[in-house]
């Protein structure tokens, strides 16, 4: 089969895997707790009682919701499947390991975009306006894909315990939220804080969200988008290369 046809066929099978993930994993407790409830409560605990405008709060809330939801499913699917003894059956199907990983990323991506839309609707209901909705939509899609890819990087260590993977993810995710301009705009961070913020992909999405909603960001939108794209490519390559090595060791 010529390569483009093969790629199309494997893409179709990635979508089948994503659909399976959506049906099985969206309603799982850890996904709802870590993906939806946790970021909402965390955000509320930092904002209630402070005199903050809706225009300031919504970009931060959106960034955090998107980051947590899009990284809630992709890390746990592979260890969960290994633990439930469904992974070997899946790996013996005519699908590449890359196809499985892309399927898991797509499921997480859809969850991230879906829950973010609710947040965006809430913002619009509260009166925020989005300048350049097209760029903003591209940013949401790109960031959701980037964070979902990051999620699969968390599950590279070949442990079959979803709780262990969640712990690894939490160690990365919580510091990232605090350094990414979610609670404190980048302009108000000291120089060393800004330097640290630049290594977080969430920084660039939050910056685009602030530009679109508050009318001013820290970096040009094009730079934000390009860096998000670079992070996405990096996470995808790392996840695919390393899962190729570790996935067979799970069974």
């Amino acid at each position, binding site marked *: 089969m010529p390569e483009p046809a093969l790629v199309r066929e494997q893409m179709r*099978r990635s979508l*089948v*895997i994503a659909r399976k993930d959506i049906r099985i994993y969206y309603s799982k407790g850890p996904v709802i707790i870590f993906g939806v409830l946790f970021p909402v409560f965390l955000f509320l605990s930092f904002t209630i009682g402070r005199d903050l405008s809706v225009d300031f709060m919504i970009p931060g809330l959106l960034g955090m919701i998107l980051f947590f939801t899009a990284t809630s499913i992709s890390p746990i699917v592979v260890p969960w499947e290994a633990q439930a003894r469904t992974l070997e*059956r899946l790996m*013996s*199907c005519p*699908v590449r390991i890359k196809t499985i990983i892309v399927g898991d990323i797509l499921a997480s991506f859809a969850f991230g975009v879906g829950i973010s839309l609710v947040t965006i609707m809430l913002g619009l209901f509260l009166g925020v306006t989005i300048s350049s909705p097209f760029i903003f939509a591209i940013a949401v899609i790109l960031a959701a894909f980037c964070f979902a890819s990051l999620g699969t990087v968390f599950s590279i260590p070949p442990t079959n315990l979803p709780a262990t993977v969640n712990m690894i993810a939490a160690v990365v995710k919580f510091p990232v939220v605090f350094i990414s301009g979610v609670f404190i705009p980048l302009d108000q961070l000291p120089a060393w804080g800004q330097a640290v913020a630049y290594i977080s992909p969430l920084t660039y999405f939050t910056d685009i969200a602030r530009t679109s909603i508050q009318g001013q960001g820290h970096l040009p939108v094009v730079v934000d988008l390009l860096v998000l794209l670079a992070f996405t490519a990096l996470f995808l390559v790392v996840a695919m290369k390393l899962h190729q090595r570790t996935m067979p060791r799970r069974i």
Partner: protein
Amino acid sequence: MTKYYGELLAVDHVSFTVGRGELFGFLGPNGAGKTTTVRMLTGVIRADEGSASISGHRVGTLKAKQIAGVVPEMANAYADLSAWDNLMLMAELYGIPASVARERGISLMQEMGLYPRKDSLVKTYSRGMKQRLILCMALVSDPEVLFLDEPTSGLDVQSVRLIKDLLQGLNAKGKTIFLTTHDMDEANQLCDRVAIINKGNIVAIDAPEKLRMATSGMHSVEISFDNVVSPEVLANIPGVNTVKKLGDKYRLYTANPGELVVSLANYSSSHGLNVISLNILVPSLEDAFVALTEKEAEHA
């Protein structure tokens, strides 16, 4: 093919050919390397050395996987999906058109006695029903070759019989079947040829009957007397290699059962014993298996 797990040599230069349409058994004790071999053949893990091909396609490639159906050891279907959804999921992953998949799915589920419960979640299925479903999932793509790793292990009698009948039917239709098992009766009943693997090495490959008959010294005579006889006395009768007490009977292993029967008749008449029963037994596949794996252990 050779496979290491760290320092452990799990499979050591295993090499064999399975003919098209053959039902090939892969026997071995626990930890012998059966599952590792199947996983290499189904492309789930890579061999550290060597390679294999299925119908000319290198194992692990999409083409090799496309023509194989797999029932992994201790595999599960997705417990949160219905049996039917599991089956259709597998069909989609093999690229089977929906109408063909539906037709095959109905036929397979009816044959396996699962159709009335097709819409139930798999988590409500018994172990036997789950295994029958996994077999349906392996067959929904109508594979040329079927790999089954211990498919009947720990199942109820009804499920075992259904699976065995299905395998025989598939083989009669020309499907090539690679079956790993440690159930000697199953291998004896189903397989055209068997390979015996022990500690990662293949110690024999042949038809079950040939393996049984080639096991010299494993013929035996089973005898019971009307009075107590000590096994040590029986062990001294010419031609007896080993004595095993089995309830009120003795099994005497010998290379020449004909001569042993004469010796036993002489012994019983000279000691005033009556023979209650006497049977000449040919070696079972299990005897052959034990003899071959023990010989391997001695060599090691």
